[in-house]
């Protein structure tokens, strides 16, 4: 046990001394600082991309129908510089937009038909939507006027609106989706990055032949457990430091950040969800780190690590992609996800997503966690065996059947 702690301490300290690790942590902390302090210096405005909406836009209207429609558009798009030239042709309008004479040109062919000419259609362009609305209500008003309704009645009719309020008894899936997505991204990145680090670290010890001394000084079990757990704790510590720093930044700037929707989504994460996040991070990381450590032990050179860990990484990535796709398609209750949420290789993602989206009970979560723990126990033992064999193998990385044969011979 003492030996395990020696390895653990050594591996953990390696991270604290690793310039890239520390640098990355500081960089992310700086980004958090920048984002949270930004509103303080801009008088409450958060960082949003300037879409160029402020500049005055020129608009050409070619109306081949009722003049009243032109007036309605003019009054709605008050911030536009509007020119009306009903004699122009569609081709001319296209040309003048292409030349840059006008930003937008509208050619109204009939009360319900128009062409919207624009040079580059922006992602956030809402003008055509506004014109749709204006034309539709104008059409309705005309229709009702023709039917004999008074102006007052028409006004009352067209301006009617519905007030609705959603009362959420279960989970707010829009927020849950955000939570699940965010936390899964954290889990995904952490497992990939730290898992890979474990494999690389083992391979480095092998390629530098430090392993020659390690295996003769320590029990391989302690070496791999110390490394996996040391790396995992370093990862957790990094996330914790960033989280605490984030909370500090938010608390300092809370007056400026009120009403920020993205932020409120963070603060709305329930304590039980935080616990599940930690549990699934620890277990998910543990499972994959053991496998990666075992794979890393079979590499003689650092270049081989990628090839050897690929099957492990692919399993994880596929699990992630499937879960995210079902989540995005709002089919988190699908039987496939339900099955995956009990399979140890995918449960850290699938069960976690189900918990976030409120479709799994605590009992189901518990069963999944127990299966995961038992699997880690057996995979950990398998990893130690592979590691024990792998660290003595030099030369080109062994093929899958060679690993199986070596495992059989070992028993």
């Amino acid at each position, binding site marked *: 046990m003492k030996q395990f702690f*020696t390895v653990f301490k050594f591996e953990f300290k390696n991270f604290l001394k690793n310039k890239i690790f520390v640098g990355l942590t500081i960089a992310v902390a700086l980004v958090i600082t920048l984002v949270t302090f930004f509103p303080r210096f801009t008088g409450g405005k958060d960082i949003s991309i300037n879409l160029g909406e402020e500049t005055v836009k020129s608009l050409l209207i070619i109306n081949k129908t009722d003049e009243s429609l032109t007036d309605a558009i003019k009054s709605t798009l008050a911030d536009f510089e509007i020119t009306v030239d009903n004699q122009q042709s569609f081709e001319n309008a296209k040309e003048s937009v292409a030349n840059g004479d006008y930003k937008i040109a509208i050619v109204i062919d009939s009360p319900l038909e128009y062409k919207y000419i624009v040079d580059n259609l922006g992602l956030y362009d809402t003008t055509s939507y506004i014109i749709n609305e204006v034309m539709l209500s104008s059409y309705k008003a005309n229709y009702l006027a023709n039917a004999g309704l008074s102006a007052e009645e028409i006004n009352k009719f067209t301006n009617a609106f519905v007030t609705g309020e959603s009362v959420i008894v279960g989970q707010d899936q829009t927020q849950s989706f955000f939570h699940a997505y965010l936390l899964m991204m954290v889990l995904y990145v952490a497992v990939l990055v730290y898992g890979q680090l474990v494999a690389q670290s083992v391979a480095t010890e092998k390629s*530098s*032949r*430090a392993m*020659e*001394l390690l295996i*003769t*000084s320590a029990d391989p079990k302690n070496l791999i457990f110390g490394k996996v757990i040391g790396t995992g704790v370093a990862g957790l510590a990094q996330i914790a430091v960033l989280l605490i720093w984030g909370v500090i930044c938010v608390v300092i700037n809370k007056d400026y950040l009120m009403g920020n929707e993205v932020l409120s989504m963070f603060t709305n994460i329930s304590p039980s969800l935080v616990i599940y996040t930690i549990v699934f991070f620890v277990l998910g990381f543990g499972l994959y780190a053991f496998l990666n450590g075992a794979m890393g032990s079979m590499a003689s050179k650092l270049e081989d690590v990628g090839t050897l860990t690929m099957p492990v990484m692919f399993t994880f990535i596929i699990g992630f992609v499937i879960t995210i796709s079902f989540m995005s398609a709002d089919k988190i209750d699908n039987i496939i996800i339900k099955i995956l949420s009990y399979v140890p290789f995918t449960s850290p993602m699938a069960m976690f997503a189900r918990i976030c989206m409120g479709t799994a009970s605590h009992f189901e979560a518990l069963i999944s966690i127990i299966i995961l723990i038992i699997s880690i126990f057996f995979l950990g033992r398998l990893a130690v065996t592979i590691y024990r064999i792998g660290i003595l193998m030099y030369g080109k990385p062994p093929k899958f059947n060679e690993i199986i*044969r070596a495992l059989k*011979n070992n028993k």
Partner: protein
Amino acid sequence: MTGDECMILTINNVTKNFGDKSVLKGISFSAESGKAVGVLGRNGAGKTTLIRIIMNVFGADSGSVTLDGNPINTKNVRIGYLPEERGLYPKKKIMEQLVYFAELQNVDKKVAMQNAETLLRRLDIEEYKNRRLDTLSKGNQQKVQLVATLIANPDIIILDEPFSGLDPVNASLLKDLVKDLIRNGKLVLFSSHQMNYIEEFCDEILILNGGKIVLSGGIKEIKRGYARNIIEIKTDDIKTITDFLNNGNFDFIKRITCDNEKITITLIDDSYKDKLMETISQFGNLIDGFSVKEPTLNEIFVSFTEGQI
């Protein structure tokens, strides 16, 4: 276990197979404290496998490794190992990794630091203790490797090619240290292809070939076991003596050869040494040396391992 006790390490009929390949086929020998045993063998003869079995990295398929009659337990006895493939962390500070390796062997951190200081000073590299290993020259890295081997104050020391790549000054520094270790009662297994070092340190050797011990015993006895009928005469006047012997047609001489400094005479039997001496006694003033030519360890090694592994 303390270093004062005399320990006997016994390897008894150890075999090891890797898959279909039989690497060790019944190895038996013993070694005791205060002595160095030279483990010789060509590349791939099974030396590293044998060392790993002794260090319990993996077990033997059959046979046993015992220390004073009990199965060796690496938890109770410390073994210092200098691997042929040097292995340390190139990017780590020297003191830091030395202490780590000591702590893995259950040595207290403070003691480890003291041991490291002492050994680094002894090998003239104390000034580098806070430097990264890869900033040191090859010779100095080698010395750090030896410090890593000895830092836990092991009772059994296994040295695999400890002098390769060292300049003569560093080699003699290391040699003195190894001699001290033997004098201080450590049990040393010494593997090298440089036979002069083996002869310098080891009283006993074993030659491993094809997974078997093809020769073992004391170096002196082994050499004495060879025919002693070849005599070397050192002289400045080779011609006079050679002519005399050739013209004399002595029936106890089989063959006479010579080079620039010596005459080599093969007798029909080693019992004729006195007769030869008597015959050439008249040239006594010309003769610088009269000795039996013993085979060198190198020649013995080659004769036992040539042809096949």
